[in-house]
């Protein structure tokens, strides 16, 4: 009896759901944003998708936090001023992309056509950003990519897509240079990387660069994304007796790899891993973090300042590094990572391009971005204007951080490379 009853209810619920859904789809899109009062303010919307669920959730969340902080700052300042005196008041609109490319194009089309966003920011990660760029290019929208470092993505002949991150090919080049500076006798490098798109491109570039510099790459292998135990692989690395290990992938595998290298007491002098070390949480692995080097797009200790801008004959724009760090700490109660800085910088550079062009017209903003060559808290930014690599990041450079144990036994993340940015000398592992 109750069985039948349930079935009846279930069926009823399902069909009514179906009808509601169909109705919801047929109904016109959500009402436009209520206009901010005052004739001289003009609201605009910046759209993107974020990985609120799935494996990219952490990095993506940091990116949104950075962007949110930028939005607060603009609102506090009363908006962005255009040439005719109109104040532009930005807002952001985003959907969850579940960390997969499947729905990215549909969501970006929705943002463009249904939510009528004015500008776009990319999703986190190169693969997702590429799928979004196809749609944004097709619609002639300006899109700033952040959290997407792939070189190949930016060699597509894009016209209105601009990359904030230093491309992947340059991620580990500095680490190779640093190794040479520290001890020219260390010649044997093992490059081990996660077998995913981003880490593989970085590793391929590092492999070539190291060889061109006369290094002996004794092991060059990728491990599966799902790898949880590196012990057997570490035995293989040890057997190749390298002086340095470079590679890694993302946070989880990088952390485990560092931890197990320590547990197995692998006698290497130099370890540089992607993505994981710059995250403040990396240090939770304790002594295993000691001496690990990580390439970073940005660190709280970077020394970019209005003075260094004028010394390099570049204009300075936006908050100082200290202001950004303290505002971020005040709002989120944690140190900003480079993903967070990238999120803030995406908003900031868009703001600058709107101000420079004095307009919201896509072509004019694009022209302003093409001309842009400046220093901010995030560093030097200049986009390629070459037709083939248009929009690719040309000027921004990586910094290399290392976890070092202070006199009080606490770990500090120090910048150790390049020399003009360093806050401490790099140390070899014992």
């Amino acid at each position, binding site marked *: 009896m109750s069985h039948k009853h349930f079935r009846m209810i279930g069926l009823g619920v399902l069909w009514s759901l179906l009808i509601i859904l169909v109705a919801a789809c047929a109904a016109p899109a959500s009402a436009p944003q209520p206009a901010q009062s005052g004739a001289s303010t003009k609201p605009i919307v910046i759209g993107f998708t974020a990985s609120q*669920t*799935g*494996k*990219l*959730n*952490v990095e993506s*969340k940091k990116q949104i936090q950075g962007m949110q902080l930028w939005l607060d700052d603009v609102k506090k300042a009363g908006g962005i001023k255009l040439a005719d005196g109109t104040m532009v008041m930005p807002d952001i609109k985003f959907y969850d992309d579940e960390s997969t490319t499947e729905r990215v194009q549909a969501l970006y089309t929705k943002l463009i056509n249904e939510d009528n966003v004015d500008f776009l920011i990319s999703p986190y990660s190169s693969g997702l950003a590429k799928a979004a760029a196809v749609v944004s290019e097709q619609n002639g929208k300006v899109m700033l990519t952040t959290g997407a470092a792939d070189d190949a993505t930016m060699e597509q002949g894009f016209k209105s897509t601009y990359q904030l991150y230093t491309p992947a090919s340059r991620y580990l080049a500095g680490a190779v240079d640093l190794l040479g500076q520290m001890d020219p006798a260390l010649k044997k490098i093992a490059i081990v990387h996660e*077998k995913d798109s981003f880490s593989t491109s970085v590793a391929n570039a590092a492999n070539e660069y190291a060889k061109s510099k006369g290094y002996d790459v004794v092991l060059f*292998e*990728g*491990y*599966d994304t*799902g*790898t*949880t*135990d590196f*012990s*057997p*692989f570490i*035995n*293989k690395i*040890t*057997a190749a007796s390298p002086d340095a290990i470079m590679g890694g992938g993302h*946070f*989880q595998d990088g*952390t*485990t790899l560092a*931890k197990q290298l320590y*547990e*197995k*007491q692998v006698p290497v002098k130099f370890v540089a891993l992607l993505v994981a070390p710059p995250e403040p*949480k990396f240090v*939770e*692995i*304790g002594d295993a973090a000691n001496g690990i080097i990580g390439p970073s797009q940005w660190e709280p200790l970077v020394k970019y300042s209005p003075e260094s801008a004028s010394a390099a004959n570049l204009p300075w724009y936006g908050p100082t590094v200290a202001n950004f760090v303290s505002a971020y700490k005040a709002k989120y109660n944690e140190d900003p990572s480079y993903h967070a800085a990238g999120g803030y910088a995406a908003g900031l550079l868009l703001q600058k391009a709107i101000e420079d062009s004095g307009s919201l017209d896509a072509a004019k903003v694009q022209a302003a971005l093409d001309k842009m060559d400046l220093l901010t808290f995030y560093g030097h930014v200049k986009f390629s204007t070459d037709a083939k690599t248009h929009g690719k990041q040309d000027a921004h450079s990586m910094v290399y951080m290392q976890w070092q144990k202070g006199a009080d036994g606490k770990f500090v993340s120090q910048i150790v490379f390049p020399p003009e940015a360093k806050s401490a000398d790099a140390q070899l592992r014992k």
Partner: protein
Amino acid sequence: MNLEALLASGIDGLMLGFVYGIAAMGLTLIFGVMRVINLAHGPIIALGMFSVYLLTNQLGLNPYLAIPITVLLGLAFGMVMYFVAVNRVINEPELTTLLATFAVSLIIIGLGTVAFTTTPRALDVNLGALRSGQITVLGTKAVAVLIAILVAAGLYALLYRTRVGKSIRAVANNRSAAEIMGINTRGILAFSFGLGTALAATAGGLIATLFAFTILSGGTFELKSFVIVVLGGLGNPTGALVGGILLGLLEGVFTIFIPVGWVPVIEYVIFVLILLVRPNGLFGART
């Protein structure tokens, strides 16, 4: 080939194999008793990880004290899950039970992502290590192996030395006959399901003492459990333990001989081949 590296990797793989084995025992026990493949297996392993993590970090328990509690929580979770999601469709074709358990997996992953995000967590457990040349035996791994052996022995004793175990075997053998003999089949099914999830949760707890993890980490171990269960024969808990050890060993040894990226390819090819050639497992009867 470097013999020492091979030996070291063999030992590493072997030790991890015990943990794989415990996880797979949970999956295979459930299948053996009620012909259900539990697609929430991976998320339950992840819940086991978080159970130990939270008990240790929030309540300040010793992680190894948190494991028996996790066993009980896993048992309770499984029994509730059985009555909510499985009992009603236990006699339906396998697609129905596959989807019912998959629905539970979606619920766990969905709520888990909201509650814990996908930020990796790690327990800081350090029990020292025994070292000899390249060979390293970590204390945490040794204890994990020990616990895995205890759990396996406990399960064996339960199945073959107790009345409940007899009932479970009877239900697995022939449910309607067991019913006629006066066995409360529904209770036995629920208990068996709980035992399966308890094993999964225990494996998760042990893994949490070894590696960093997120709410999504169970997925890898779920796939490995499928491979192991087929190696050992579907429905055969002893086979699963042996299969787990075998898989760990294979992973360790293969890593030395071939590029490490190819190891999963070999694993899954072996998996499909065994299904085709010896569907009852390496130790089962030929068909």
